[in-house]
């Protein structure tokens, strides 16, 4: 088992899950090599700026209500704090709750890089507690604090003696991992080690790991059919709710990349079953996921009854719109928790996947198994499509789009969507994690695909007037030209 809650850090995905950011090949090869353990990460001799794990780790924790994040870093690493404030306020209003979480930086300067600054860090944490009385404090580390060797763990030990609320270090130095999703694990590790308490009793709750709980009402209603309640994590969660994660009937997630550490950690430590099916996107995904939940909570007949009822309403509509999508060609570029799930949904809708790019790839999840979406595709994909792993290397994506000229590009990050549009490719950003959730989501998604390809005015007009920053030489190369050979 790869999770060790006795340590202060979760460790990187490279070391825990054999995760990689450099690959170019096809579906069959990738899955087979994952099973045999022969998959090797390839480096690039040219790279574009990607993302670091700190952003993922601290963004997750800053959604928890009424806590404090203290980022032990230079100011630039904390500069997105205003966005966090606004997002928290808006999402709290949407829920009808309040969120007083604060996001503080220690503003490390040149002197600190020479003399260290753990003393100041401690003062700032104490001052933050004095000002706001947060219900928990998470201290983030950074490239600078890591390189100069700040002993944050010792400071946390001292602070625990002085502050009556949970205090945790979140080890998320950006240089330590190429996989920014390691930051999700760092946040889960902090929650598991500092907030979650042993269960006193079982409750009718299902932990639902997601990003922004946008389908909250819909899922509350769905789960009510089976007599259970969802607890959405971490946006708008309270410290008290998180203390009780161990008392849930099960843990589910909307994205395997996001859920693996918490789900497996809760199962290993407290025996809370983690539902590890393909994700609830598209019809097959939704039904598979729901049936597994039914098995875990002992409500299989109710689930079957629900599926029959919903199918009657939605399947004729989905079948009808599928007729219009047949034969469309698509390229995808997403995090791996979505790339392979959305590829499956596209195939379900009759769309041909010509290239799928994942921003990283986990050879296995924390239970030691290859992600279920890959095994599913290996069995069911009508063809062995081309596939690459690249940490948002935009130049590779634009090269792929130029070579394959798909009808549509699917992304999950607005940053890459823009560039495809500038190159004239209609693009749909699957930004909302619930965009393809369940029968209704699948139908809406199919309609959105049609809307995207039928009105290409913006793409056409913008591309005609935009000069892209890449050379003609680059567009004539293979997209893998700058990946180094395996060594």
């Amino acid at each position, binding site marked *: 088992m790869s999770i060790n809650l006795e340590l202060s850090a979760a460790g990187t995905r490279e070391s825990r899950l054999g995760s990689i950011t450099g690959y170019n090949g096809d579906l069959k090869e990738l899955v087979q090599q994952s099973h045999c353990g022969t998959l090797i990460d390839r480096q690039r001799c*040219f*790279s*574009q700026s990607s993302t670091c794990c700190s952003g993922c780790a601290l963004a997750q924790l800053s959604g928890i209500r009424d806590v404090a994040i203290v980022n032990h870093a*230079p100011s*630039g690493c904390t500069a997105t704090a205003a*966005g966090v404030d606004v997002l928290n306020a808006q999402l709290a209003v949407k829920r009808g709750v309040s969120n007083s979480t604060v996001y503080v930086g220690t503003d490390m*300067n040149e002197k600190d890089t020479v003399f260290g600054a753990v003393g100041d860090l401690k003062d700032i944490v104490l001052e933050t507690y004095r000002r706001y009385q947060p219900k928990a404090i998470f201290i983030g580390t950074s490239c600078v604090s890591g390189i100069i060797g700040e002993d944050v763990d010792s400071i946390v030990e001292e602070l625990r003696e002085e502050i009556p609320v949970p205090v945790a270090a979140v080890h998320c130095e950006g240089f330590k991992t190429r996989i920014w999703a390691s930051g999700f694990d760092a946040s889960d590790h902090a929650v598991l080690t500092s907030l979650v308490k042993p269960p006193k009793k079982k409750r009718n709750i299902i932990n639902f790991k997601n990003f922004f709980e946008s389908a909250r009402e819909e899922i509350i209603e769905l789960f009510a059919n089976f007599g259970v309640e969802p607890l959405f994590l971490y946006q708008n969660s309270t410290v008290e709710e998180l203390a009780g994660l161990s008392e849930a009937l099960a843990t589910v997630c909307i994205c395997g990349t996001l859920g693996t550490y918490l789900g497996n950690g809760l199962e290993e430590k407290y025996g809370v079953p983690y539902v590890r099916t393909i994700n609830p996107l598209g019809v097959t995904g939704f039904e598979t996921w729901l049936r597994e939940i039914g098995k875990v909570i002992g409500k299989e007949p109710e689930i079957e009854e629900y599926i029959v009822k919903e199918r009657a309403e939605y399947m004729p509509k989905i079948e009808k719109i599928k007729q219009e999508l047949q034969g469309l060609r698509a390229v995808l570029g997403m995090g791996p928790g979505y790339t392979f799930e959305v590829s499956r949904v596209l195939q379900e809708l009759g769309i041909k996947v010509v290239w799928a790019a994942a921003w990283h790839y986990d050879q296995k999840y924390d239970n030691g198994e290859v992600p279920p979406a890959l095994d599913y595709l290996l069995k069911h994909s009508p063809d062995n499509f081309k596939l690459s792993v690249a940490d948002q290397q935009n130049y590779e994506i634009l090269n792929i789009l130029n070579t394959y000229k798909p009808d549509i590009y699917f992304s999950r990050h607005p940053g890459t969507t823009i560039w495809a549009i500038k190159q004239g490719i209609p693009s749909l950003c699957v930004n909302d994690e619930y965009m393809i959730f369940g029968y209704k989501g699948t139908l809406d998604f199919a309609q959105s695909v049609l809307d995207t390809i039928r009105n290409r005015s913006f793409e056409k007009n913008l591309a005609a007037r935009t000069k892209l920053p*890449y050379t003609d030489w680059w567009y004539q190369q293979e997209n893998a030209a700058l990946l180094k050979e395996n060594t």
Partner: protein
Amino acid sequence: MGHCIENPRSSCALGGALALISSINRTIPVLHAGPGCGLQVTAGQLGQSGGKSYGYVGGQGTPSTNMFEREVVFGGVERLRETIDGTLEIMDGDLFFVLTGCTADIIGDDVKSVIDEFKAKGVSIAHAETAGFKGDSYYGYNTAFQAIVSQLVEVTPRDAKMVNLFGIVPAQDIFWEGNFEEIIRILNKLGLKVNSFCKEQQGLQEIKKSSGAALNIMLSPWLGQEFLAEYKEKYGVGTFRYPGLPVGPTATSDFIRKLAEYMDLDKALVEKVIAEEENYVYSYLEKIIGSFTRYRFVIVGDANTVLGLTRFLVNDFGRIPLAAVITEDVPPEYRDGIVDELTHLEYARPPKVVFESDKWKISEWIRTYKDDAALILGSDYEKEIGNELDIVTVVVSFPTTEKLIINRGYAGYRGCLTFIEDLYDNN
């Protein structure tokens, strides 16, 4: 450190430098920095400055060495060389600009010698040390311009009608594009050619020939001391410094008349431009007289915004300033000048001026005016205290993620009308 920066009001040196370099046409930034720096400083700088992204290149998509453990331990010079080689093949640009982040500067990579290798091969390339721990976005702006003047400007014959325009900091001034456009419009109307470097597709050519300008115009009470000194020393270009943005008819006309003292401008043309522009503004101001109330306000923001808007609200619009909070780290020697400027306007009592960036302290400060203030001008951060105290709060300074700002601006004659529209926007 030693003090708490709750919710910083700028990105870091790298963020400020990247925003500037990316706004220079066909200039390709190359980051020698950690993997997340491009995203962090883009989200932290542009993302919170009216929600735009980069145009040609910048942010994610910027060439970057993405320094990981190997580079931290063994040094990143080889990786930088490899990344520049790749950049020259893949990216189409006139100028390549290496910006270093915290990791590179702590481990002490010898970036200059790598740059020199490429220069020797005839590549247009420059570099600046912009580690985040060295300073904020303003530090990055200054440092990047210092690198431009030291490494790229060339000797050019003098052009008596050409000026260089500085002080509007890209993506730190949330209205930077609109502010640039209005100031450039006014200067053009006075018969001047303007090197803004950031607008009108200006790039390497304008940088090279900026040594031939008749004058540097610096719209800031404190920025750029060092690089302006180098312009003077190496190329004989002097500087006209105006403290903060000129906003509204009084300040903008004052700006023009003072500029005319530095340059050989046709006096008749100057007065004609001033009359036309003032008439334009007042033809609208007379129509909104029904909205006029003499309320009291508190303002929070960078020196340029605070000076510009306070002068306009007071000298043109009859408002009463209670307090002004300057949020950037202004060097101590410039602070008295700013206080002096703000406390010598047309009022019965001058505002209290403080220099502070901590959100909590600023909020506590605003709280002391809760019975007097009818308006708070600030950033997204001040919305919180504004809501709590039930005082109307209008966002005028960095950071903001609540609105999309394309080309609106508050500077000059026309900008003050946009500002008034925003004051009365009830959203």
